[in-house]
């Protein structure tokens, strides 16, 4: 009787230890920030969060939604976020500038970046861009347009482009910077038909850079590689779930957007998720799933150096750490 009691207590203690381990006690706190608004562009992360995948991997995650008013780069630098998403070019620039960031997973393999003109402004070929007013986002999003203009020896009038496309829609600029998965569809939903537009995909002009990737500081990776690996794995699981259940994923994103009072609609988010799936899973371009291709890395570095965005470029193995199992 007595021995039985002790045994029971022992078992209960063991169980409760195990439970706390899975639930909270040993859940590691971490923060994550996206480099843009909580769109379907980041659906995988939000799905992983909502579906409890981070918890499953032992992370008590806080997601800091991106915004035009705060940069994930600064949050990472200032230690306000443990993990961030960044474009590869941003990562290279940060590393080149001395901040020891590392890419621990590459999400977007193919580039969705583009320039768009209305056909009514007489732009049908790349050379038609000459002397036109072109809306460009701030660095590092002006890197590839600059590289393109240099490549074709085109002089343009650069107008800083804000988060909205209204200047372009009203005719204030002839061309606008756009992501195929976002701004392009916004134009369609503002009453422009695809046949009324001339798109220039950078990937068609030798500028297919890998884009969204997961970054952290090298110190963090060194100090807690398990956390980093857990974060990467949970995120990847989230992405695969989102691609397999787009409606579910869009529901999650839409709720976030509604709660944040960010104007959004389902058709747009669904479009975005579809394109993200295409850019992420279709590895015809730069590299295999979740990995940073060396070729894409070298291409990006080369263009950055050529334009003079950076003076020296980091080594591939210095910037990219493959955490896959």
């Amino acid at each position: 009787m007595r021995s039985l009691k002790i045994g029971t207590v022992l078992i209960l203690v063991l169980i409760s230890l195990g439970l706390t381990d899975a639930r909270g006690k040993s859940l590691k706190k971490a923060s994550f920030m996206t480099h843009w608004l909580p769109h379907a562009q980041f659906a995988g992360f939000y799905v992983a969060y909502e579906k409890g995948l981070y918890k499953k991997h032992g992370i008590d995650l806080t997601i800091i939604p991106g915004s035009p008013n705060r940069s994930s780069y600064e949050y990472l630098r200032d230690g306000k976020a443990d993990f961030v998403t960044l474009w590869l070019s941003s990562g290279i620039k940060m590393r080149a500038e001395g901040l020891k960031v590392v890419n621990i997973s590459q999400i977007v393999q193919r580039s969705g970046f583009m320039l768009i003109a209305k056909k009514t402004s007489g732009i049908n070929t790349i050379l038609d861009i000459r002397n036109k007013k072109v809306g460009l986002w701030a660095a590092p999003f002006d890197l590839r347009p600059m590289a393109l203009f240099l490549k074709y020896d085109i002089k343009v009038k650069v107008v800083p482009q804000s988060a909205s496309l209204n200047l372009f829609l009203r005719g204030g600029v002839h061309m606008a910077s756009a992501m195929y998965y976002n701004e392009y569809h916004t134009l369609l939903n503002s009453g422009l038909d695809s046949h009324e537009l001339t798109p220039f995909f950078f990937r068609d002009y030798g500028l297919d850079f890998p884009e969204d990737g997961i970054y952290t500081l090298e110190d963090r990776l060194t100090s807690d590689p398990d956390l980093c690996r857990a974060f990467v794995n949970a995120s990847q699981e989230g992405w695969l779930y989102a691609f397999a259940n787009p409606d579910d994923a869009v529901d999650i994103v839409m709720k976030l957007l509604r709660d944040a009072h960010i104007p959004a609609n389902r058709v747009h988010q669904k479009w975005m998720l579809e394109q993200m799936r295409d850019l992420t899973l279709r590895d015809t371009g730069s590299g295999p799933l979740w990995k940073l291709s060396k070729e894409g890395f070298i291409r990006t570095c080369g263009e950055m150096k050529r334009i003079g965005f950076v003076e020296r470029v980091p080594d591939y193995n210095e910037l990219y750490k493959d955490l896959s199992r």
Partner: protein
Amino acid sequence: MKTRGIAFRLSFFILSVVALIFVSVFSYNYYFSRRILIKNAEQIARHFTLETVNRLETVLSSVVKVPLGLSSFLEYAQYYSETLNSICRSTMANNPEISGITIAFKPFGYAQEKLYHTFYYSKKDGEIELLEEGSRVSHYFTLDWYQISKELNRAVWSEPYYDAGGGNMLMATYSVPFYGTQSGASEFMGVVAADVSLTWLQDIVSAVKILETGYAFLITNTGTIVTHFDRDVIMNETIFSVAEAFGDTHLREVGKMMIRGESGFEYFKGPYAGKDWWISFAPLKSSGWSLCTVFPDDELMADVIRLNRTVLFIGISGLFGLFVIIVLIARSITRPLSALSKVTETIATGELDAQLPAIKTRDEVGRLSESIEHMKTSLKQYIVDLTRECAMRERIESELQIARQIQMGILKKTFPAFPDRSAFDIFAMIEPAREVGGDLYDFFFVDDHNLCMVIGDVAGKGIPAALMMAVTRTLIKARASTVLSPDEVLSIVNNELAEDNDSAMFVTLFMGVLDTHTGEMTYCNAGHNYPFLVSPNGEVTEIETRNGMPLGLVEDFPYETGKIMLPPGNIFYLYTDGVNEAMNAHDEQFSEDRIQSDLARLKNNSIRQITDGVMDSVKAFSQGMPQSDDITMLILKYYGNMEKTH
């Protein structure tokens, strides 16, 4: 169809035609009233939309005057001043819709060392606050309200947005660029922007009610829905994203018309709330926005649908009523008709006492009934008459039968008539055309060796002829004697017959008296056919006697007696015109020639065989044509002292 009754055919055809007419009228009525209704609805909707647009424009145009005035003032004054400050404050106070005014200078436009510089007036607890170089606008060079106006060089309305306070207040900014003169040339200096609350606009638009569930909404010049009864849609959806979500290319086309600043009236079939909708839209010229009023088709058509239901109900009830009436009328016609037909069938079976149905109407059916009644009476009368006549005829027939037996009884039928006489052989036959004939023959001895033979033909047939024949025969038999010559006998008989002969009947007659010892024959012919004499060698001679008038016609006619010798072996042949005038189907007569050739052919046969042969020949000739006259033949073969051959 042919076997169906009148009632069915009447109701089928009339109802079909009436239903066809009804459907045509109904369809046309629906089509036409729908068209009128749509036309009216279009006018009203357009008018209504424009009216709402005008109300919005009135407010908007008063609002835009503020930054426009400020910009003019800035250009005139070339600088920010205390006067401008007081103007801004008073306009803020006087325009409740304006929640903020920003005067933003271009980079280093306000002062050499200052990249950004703004004066920002806002309302806080009813007080107007001024914030100079506020942090809110630190990055304003790339913000829409500044940049678009600058790049386009004109005053513009921004896309609506939610206020910075994180509330749900929808705002829009009207931005006006202002210019300064730099070394004589006009140069962009900055932007005056008025932040305008759109709450009033949403209030006006959402107050719009059309029919039951019709409403209005506003879209910007990029299609973004700014006001809508569904709050989730506001600022989230554009008219194009809705079109994409529903896969509605028509809506996309109409959306493009809207953002181009066109106005119109369009019809949408589903899928929105499972209804068809009408949409009327018109632009707000000042901002490029578009006001749309929508209302469901079924509500627009409610009256027509109600009317149509009533019309349909009346129509169907009418058709049913018509059906009942037609059936009743048809029945009223066909019921007596079929009753009549049944009765007529009964009548046809001979039931003439069958009672006709009582028909009171004076129409065709009534007349038909009367006719049948009349027919019935006539038929009855006719049958009564017919029955009486039949009975009478039967009696006559039986009497005629008796008369025939009597007549035949008169004529000698037993042959050989004189078996003890060897000097001659005699045979006679008669084939009456009707039961009682008018022909006669007779032969008898007036003394022990003089044989009298008579053949005659009473004009006419039947009873009168038979009576006449009997009378004539009796008279001749009574008068014939050795004392009187044949002409004397016939004269006497003629006078007796002619006397009181009102019916002008007459008899042709040949009378001959043969002395059986000598073969000498005396004779007298009262208008009868000439006899034939057939010699043993086959020579047939027509004995052309003196021809007297038939008996009974002319009183005291002088008859004459002829005389002829019958050589032994010769045949004396007498006949009536039933033989030579027997007709065939080709209207040809048997003729004396045929008699002659027959006699020649049959000369060696017995006298009975000769008459039979002639008779057969006549029958063969007439080929079944009915015998029109009595046929009588009297034949005598004289042997004298010769041996009888037969």
